């Protein structure tokens, strides 16, 4: 099962390697990872989506993360109220005549065409996993040529 964990770390060089190295050394899977600075430039926030087969593994992942000297806090969003979003960019095949149809079919996902050139549109969408999944199904009908996702970010609410 997938769980979203947010890890506040000292913004020091090598800290990403410490975290990712821990996952590979102990055989845990990272589904996605997003890293950025926080309000405090000395602290970075990593939002990690992990695949954990059971609660014991998830617990171990959190404990092992906490054990790293540069990790300040670990927050598990599994049972916490929170808001989570992911941004995707999708390049979709689209002849000029189909553009209105594409626009209307992605509207309800609050996605928009941010670039259009020679029969291809780049669509930007921000949303929850379910929304993005549905949007991608719609886009598949047009033909997705390229897809880039940021990975999830999350904030407790």
């Amino acid at each position: 099962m997938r769980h979203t964990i947010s890890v506040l770390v000292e913004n020091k060089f090598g800290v990403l390697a410490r975290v990712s190295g821990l996952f590979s050394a102990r055989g845990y899977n990272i589904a996605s990872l997003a890293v950025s600075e926080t309000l405090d430039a000395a602290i970075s926030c990593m939002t990690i989506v992990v695949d954990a087969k059971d609660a014991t593994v998830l617990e171990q992942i959190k404990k092992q993360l906490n054990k790293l000297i540069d990790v300040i806090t670990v927050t598990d969003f599994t049972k916490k109220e929170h808001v989570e979003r992911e941004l995707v960019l999708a390049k979709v095949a689209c002849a000029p005549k189909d553009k209105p149809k594409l626009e209307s079919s992605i509207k309800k996902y609050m996605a928009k065409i941010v670039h259009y050139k020679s029969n291809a549109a780049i669509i930007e969408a921000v949303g929850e996993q379910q929304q993005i999944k549905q949007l991608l199904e719609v886009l598949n009908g047009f033909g997705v040529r390229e897809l880039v996702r940021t990975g999830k970010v999350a904030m407790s609410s």
Partner: protein
Amino acid sequence: MIGAQILLECLKREGVEVMFGYPGGQVLPIFDKLYDSDIKFILTRHEQGAAHAADGYARATGKVGVCIATSGPGATNLTTGIANAYMDSIPMVAITGQVKSFLIGNDAFQEADVTGITRPITKHNYLVKDASDLARIVREAFYIASSGRPGPVVIDIPSDIQMQDTEFVWPETVDIRSYKPTYFGHPGQIKKAARMISQARKPVIYAGGGIISSGAHLVLRALAEKIQAPVTWTLMGIGGFPATHKLSLGMLGMHGTAYANHAIMEADLIIAVGARFDDRVTGRLDTFAPLAKIIHIDIDPSSISKNIKVDVPIVGDAKNILGELLESIRKSPDTQEWLKVTDALKKKSPLRYKDGGTLKPQYVVEQLYEATKGEAIITTEVGQNQMWAAQWYQYHYPHTFISSGGLGTMGFGFPAAIGAKIGCPEKTVIDIAGDGSIQMNIQEIATCVCNKINVKVAILNNGYLGMVRQWQELFYKRRYSHVCIGSPDFVKLAESYGAEGIRVTKKEEVRKAIDKALSIDNTVFIDFVVEPEENVFPMVPAGEAINRMIDGMA
């Protein structure tokens, strides 16, 4: 001050009396300052020897061991020793030279990504990028290495940083906001544990290396005596409880005593202290201690419920928590019947071996115990020698059994003995070795002779890589694949280095040879030519329940 001076000044202020190491191109500024320093320096013959010696020093004294090597190969040679210290939670600071900071990443001569290589085998590591950070880093490194669950810390210092001139400011305190180990147990959990102990009928205390590193041996003994619970221990916990005590069950696990393993399987309560339910201890996990509730005391939260689900976890320092428990237990459990059972188990299946006319390795270890009255520090290599040293020498005190537990590093015992002897010069230090293991760091005999370090090496020479041979005998139809190992003449070898050598081939000569070796003020190799195909028993085959032992006496 330049970086190199700052480093040595900080080491002095941290109380470092001795360093083990090897010079090289990227640590020249440090070695130049060492020339005038009053820190004792032991030049080993290989960087791996330096790391193990620092480790052995730390295990014998409880202080932080320090080793140093140059960049590239110097640093990579330290890594086995660093990983060894990491697996056994030994406080160590390893200092490595690095190529000049502006060359890093350029594949410069003798460059290796040392912080990258050592990340998974250290508690923490540092690459120093500015000499003005150095004092803080050294302070933090010693604090991290020695606090919480101890472990090794690497400080990688580019040679230009060693030369960089800056103001020396000693940080009076260490404050790492993201690192605050827990030392005292949760009062509610302690109460719960105390209640559980009072209600137990068949308690067993399972003590690990945490007893030694937190100095909890006396309070462990007080608790065991108060609640009248038998005590078993891990390889790392040897010496944490007197082996000759009437509540002692000896070591448990793969080569533990039959009575310890049976007691675990029958217990209704296991009090695990500073131990981590390693696979060599538990055997097949789902069969381990089926009737028992488990209290687990450990300073490392990630050790708890990692391998086995526990009923009452208590995070904190073993010494503190055992002390708190001792005070909280109002009513001691009635264990009279239980102790009768464990005593009967001890009588029924004691540790034993077939003692015929030939020279048995177990007999040698017994004689080492007799000759030293259990007062020596014993280090071991890895394999059969290690298990016999654990089984047949009776340890009364902490810090007297020094062995590579987690990593299982052949070649550890001899350099570790050097470190132990430097740390405890008044003690007799004996490395119980195999003919295979001793050859993995045999070059350190030069370190002994040149520095007049008087250690004894008892080689249980069976002509085989004995433990692997034993597995091949028992589980691979005696197909002895590459385990018959040729050795040099250890007596002549010792002599050629300026040490002394004694060969023993008969049982009757054992004690005389040991006494002679102990009376010589020099390093002595005693080459005990023992029974070639002797096995370590009892033995729990890998993946079996721990009460399904082979005892080899049939």
